[in-house]
């Protein structure tokens, strides 16, 4: 009973939040609504007993991703309201609803669900975080490491792309050119040092 109330409540809230995110013309509203939606989603994880995932959801999305978007929005000067052109809204909704219906149909049809078998059963004796840790570092070790490398790559890419002087490529420049640039740089630093 409690579970049902929680489910419907959070379902309504999540759908509402995400609808605002998608529909609003104010970027700030969208961002806020999305952050809220993320937290509500973590509630589902908790209901489903995936405690660790819920925590991760809050930390990664609401903590890291939302912060990034917030910084991005500040950078992009969102005080200037952007006028978005709307084309064929009906087609868009039709497509979305159709896709949703089909996905739901496929997922709840007995063919798919009837054949599933637990490969890594949840052990009731250990906590969720512990069980995840055990599987993650045994069965999913390689994907985990790959994901780690991917995150590292993404981080470097973010820095490189958003950093300064990204219009110049050190790898493609000739040696003299690099030397000239570094000379300018040092002279600038020296001037700053004098001041």
């Amino acid at each position: 009973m409690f579970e049902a109330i929680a489910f419907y409540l959070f379902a309504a809230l999540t759908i509402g939040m995400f609808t605002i995110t998608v529909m609003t013309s104010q970027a700030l509203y969208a961002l806020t609504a999305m952050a809220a939606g993320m937290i509500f989603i973590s509630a589902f994880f908790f209901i489903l007993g995936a405690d660790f995932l819920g925590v991760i959801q809050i930390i990664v999305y609401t903590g890291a991703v939302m912060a990034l978007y917030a910084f991005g929005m500040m950078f992009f000067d969102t005080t200037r309201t952007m006028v978005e052109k709307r084309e064929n809204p009906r087609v868009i909704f039709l497509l979305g609803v159709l896709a949703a219906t089909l996905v739901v149909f496929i997922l709840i049809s007995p063919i798919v669900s009837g054949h599933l078998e637990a490969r890594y059963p949840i052990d009731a004796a250990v906590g969720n975080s512990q069980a995840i840790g055990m599987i993650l570092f045994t069965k999913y070790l390689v994907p985990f490491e790959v994901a780690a490398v991917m995150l590292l790559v993404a981080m470097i890419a973010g820095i490189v792309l958003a950093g300064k002087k990204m219009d110049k490529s050190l790898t493609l420049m000739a040696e003299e050119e690099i030397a000239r640039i570094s000379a300018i740089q040092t002279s600038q630093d020296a001037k700053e040092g004098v001041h």
Partner: protein
Amino acid sequence: MEIYLYIALFAPLVGSLFAALFGATPKTMLTGIVASGLLFLSLVSSAILLNYVMMGHTVHVEMMTWIATGDLYIPYGFVVDQVSVVMMMVVTIVSTVVHVYSIGYMDHDKGFNRFFSYLSAFVFSMMVLVMSDNFAGLFIGWEGVGLCSWLLIGFWYHKESATWAANEAFIMNRIADLAMLIGIFIIYWNIGSLQYDVVFAEIANLPMPIITWIGIFLFIGAMGKSAQFPLHTWLADAMEGPTPVSALIHAATMVTAGVYLVVRANPVYDLIPDVGLFIASLGAFVAIFAASMALVNRDMKRIIAYSTLSQLGYMFVAAGLGAYWVALFHLMAHAFFKALLFLGAGNVMHAMHNELDPFKMGGLRKVMKGTFIMMTLASVALAGIYPFAGFFSKDLILEAAFVENHYIIYAVLLFTAGLTAFYSFRLVALIFHGEERYKLFGIHPHEAYKFMLVAMAPLLILAIIAGSFKLSYFELVTNLLPAVEYHIHHPMTYWMITIGTQLFVILAVLLAYKKYASWSSVPDGTSKLENCFCYKLLSNQYYIPKLYEELFSKPYRELSRIAWKQIDLKIVDATVDGIANLIYQTGEKTHTMQNGNLSSMLRWMVIGLVVLLVLAVAFTVGYNAVTMRAM
């Protein structure tokens, strides 16, 4: 002995390839000499083999495997036995003579080297045909000679009529070859082998209808190659080729391949006397049919071609009546004197600057003594006057028909013998006797090169003396062929018939001389004779070419036109164009989709996703429905 077999077989091929090397270059005497030399080598080898075979041996070699799949095994096997060695001798002698002769005849032709290449290739194919020890090899040779015949008839390919004649010959032979191929398939289907020895050993065990069908289909093949009615029209038109070609291919060797086939397949035809009788009847019909057309024709080479046709009819009579050795004997004798006749005609043509109408010649014996003698003797041989070759062979056929009690065939053949004598000497008289009508046309005839006449001499000798080989020949070939002797038991009847025939023939010769030896004018189509119905019928070849034109060519052309206009343009082309148009129009209509706008691309992506999902659902539902029903 195998080495001689290989030399006899492959020397012409080497000659052909050698000549082919110089095919595109202007005349080089070397090619002619080399090709002729190699042919002579082949002749010598054949002679050695003949000697060997006469001592009672045969040579049978299997050079290598050709086809070996499943139960089908066909080797490149060659056999030199009593029958094939006779054919080899005929082929090599005539072709050697023709090669040497051609050096002179083709002297001024641009395609000198090409000619020798084709001619030697023909000899090689012919050797394959006669030496093969199985039906598949025979068929390869059969097609090979057909191809070379096509090349040589159309040798002067810039002439419209020559290419037309070449194609006609080729297509008519295709029709017959299809039947022959079917016959070979039936043999393989029922016996499981194509080797002569296996086939002939097994053939008697087959049910009668199958043997009959085999016999019929093989004979249809023979009909095409030997130009028997109703596939005869190509032979006269084939005279468009150079004269040595006519002598070698369309008189002495290739056209007799049909007779050779029937002779070779004698165990088959022995079992089906009804088909044999049909062959004999058809042969007799063709004999008189062709001879009648030769009576009025005004083209020297065509007359000789009809004569060939007529003589082939004689051979088929003999073969059909079971007198295979007689057929082969006439084949041999005929090859010699007919080749000689053609080569002589070639000399005349040269002298007359390619004029073919004998009415425009006359009195040539003064300038062309050698040719005159040779052609006269060849005509005597052809007419079958004692003691020339034709007498022995043709008389034997008549006797065979008489002894077998086929008196109608006998009568027809006898009458044809008279016709033969008449038209042969009509030709001789018109060309060599009478007034010198060629002067009206300002032609200065001259005798051919000496060496050409010398080259023809062996044929002349053989045409005269070939009859004397009869006994040794009989002993030789009857090792393989049924040794039926045709003797009229009552000596009185025999002498009456023989002398009667001789008298009849001589009478025909005299008649021809009387009528034509003092001919003085060139007919212009106004005389009474030329306007009577019979004459027109004969000179138009019984309107058979016209009939074929109306019956086959025109409907076929119409059909082709319909196929082109209706089927090809409106269905095939339209389909192809339609597909191309469809694709083009699709591209034209949908290229706005690719406007580069990321947003619309995303939208398309979602549409694609939805389509995929729909398909996934549809397939799953359908699959479940099917499996449910199956359960």
